[in-house]
């Protein structure tokens, strides 16, 4: 009986979402009185032993040329072998793009109950139910897993990263690795400098900006804050901004620490994609905009005047102006 955490990486570096998954898995192991181990497929430039500071005791590293391609079918079989050999009863993923591809497959492979999009640890006072968001964040559900094994895909930005002293033992795991059927032939980075789903701060704008030519001030604010860019659905549909910036019920769902909405009225479908943000700031000239009801802070006024002043004030705070 142990908890196995999947470590995800890109361009030679471990993703921040995996630090959350490691912290979560370690805490879960502590609650269940068992040990936390991790699995990493491929290799990274980061020091693996130092991942012990997130509470994981042992890391199983599988290196094989077939793992250079991300193929969920191949990866699942390898994770399945590690889970069996380590006697894992729980497997933890981040609910990011890799986790969304892998967690359902691994759940079937291990015949485990899947909690996709978990936001918390099992609640001992409530039958060990795990909370997850449903109805696009408009509600939550408590999910129980009567099956012996469980797979948890932890929502990004839902669990705090905890660090302490510690070092993990890194062991090489030899697995049977099939040839991939999926081959990556190209990739493109999105316009923003920060990945939208991983960002701590997101600056988002809507139709209130009147046209794509007015985005420079939004980009300026985002750059100053180190924030990712987002937009509302009408803006993406009008091709003012690329569709991968569209946040909302049918776009990307995000949960940053700070979400700044400029010139967005806050339709219920938009709120569904952003309501997990910890702090919401709304700038809108219409005091009746429904978004103000869901906001923590707001300014009623003209975005074209307020946004540049906002950027200046942030620069001043950061001592860069």
């Amino acid at each position: 009986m142990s908890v196995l955490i999947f470590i995800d990486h890109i361009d030679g570096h471990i993703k921040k979402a995996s630090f959350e998954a490691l912290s979560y898995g370690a805490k879960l192991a502590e609650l269940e009185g068992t040990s936390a181990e991790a699995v990493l497929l491929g290799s990274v430039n980061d020091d693996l032993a130092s991942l012990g500071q997130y509470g994981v005791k042992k890391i199983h590293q599988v290196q094989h040329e077939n793992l250079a391609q991300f193929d969920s079918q191949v990866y699942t079989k390898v994770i399945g072998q590690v889970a069996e050999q380590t006697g894992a009863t729980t497997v933890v993923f981040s609910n990011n793009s890799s986790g969304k591809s892998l967690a359902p497959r691994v759940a079937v492979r291990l015949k485990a109950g899947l909690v996709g999009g978990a936001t918390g640890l099992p609640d001992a006072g409530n039958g060990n139910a795990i909370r997850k968001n449903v109805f696009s964040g408009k509600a939550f559900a408590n999910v129980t897993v009567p099956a012996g094994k469980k797979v948890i895909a932890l929502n990004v930005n839902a669990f705090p990263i905890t660090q302490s002293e510690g070092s993990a033992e890194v062991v090489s795991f030899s697995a049977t690795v099939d040839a991939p059927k999926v081959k990556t032939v190209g990739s493109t980075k999105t316009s923003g400098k920060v990945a939208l789903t991983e960002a701590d701060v997101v600056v988002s704008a809507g139709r209130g900006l009147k046209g794509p030519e007015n985005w420079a001030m939004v980009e300026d604010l985002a750059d100053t804050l180190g924030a990712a860019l987002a937009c509302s659905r009408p803006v993406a549909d009008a091709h003012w901004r690329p569709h991968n910036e569209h946040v909302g019920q049918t776009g990307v769902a995000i949960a940053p620490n700070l979400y700044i909405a400029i010139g967005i009225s806050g339709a219920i479908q938009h709120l569904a994609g952003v309501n997990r943000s910890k702090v919401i700031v709304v700038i809108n000239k219409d005091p009746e905009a429904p978004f103000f009801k869901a906001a923590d802070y707001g300014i009623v006024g003209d975005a074209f005047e307020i946004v540049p002043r906002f950027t200046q004030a942030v620069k001043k705070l950061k001592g860069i102006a």
Partner: protein
Amino acid sequence: MKILVCISKTPDTTAKIAFSDNNTKFAEAGVQWIINPYDEWYSLVRAIELKEADPGSTIHLVTVGGADAEPIIRKALALGGDEAIRINTEPLESYQVAVQIAEIARQGGYDIVFTGKETIDYNGGAVGGMIAELLDLPYITQATGFQLNGTTATVKREIEGGEETVEVSLPVVIGCQKGMAEARIPNMRGIMAARTKPLKVVEPTSNEALTAFSSFGLPPAKAGVKLVSPDNVEDLVRLLHDEARAL
């Protein structure tokens, strides 16, 4: 090309979310039902486009649900598709749904199984991946584009901070999201034709569930917005820094 499109019935995006039976069930009274937008706008419409490009293709729709799911499947047939299958059981969770659909997919020998990347009600995002694992097929989710080239497909998928283009051999399971296709509305001819398209009802092979929703709740309401004067934008930055600790 044989294509299977998975269709799920969900509450309308503007539906009031409330729970009944001591917070153990979604309160369905007065709720309008729609085709899950990811299933309709992206997965079904992309399948229809593929058939338009290659009229020899067949599209089958499949849904897991009771008789009350039939208006939804008829609406999907009005958009396109040759016939539909309804697996007659009230779905409780993803694994149960995936097992049923995988059985249909196995019998039908499809080249492509399209699902939405998730449903907008329970947000599990699990059925596509589970079907793929049950059938031992490749699975690409968060797909934003799909092009056929003979027996392989070129698929675009969203990853953190960008997009990736991958080549994959058929058969394959695809989880669709925005970018795949543009939303359509059924025309009168489609609506008329849908009335006579075959809708087969089959009984479930098993009803095993591996998880259970024990209860639901609504997040606590926000304390209320704190308004800052547009003349004092600096105050907002100070509040975000000192009070909210978000900067």
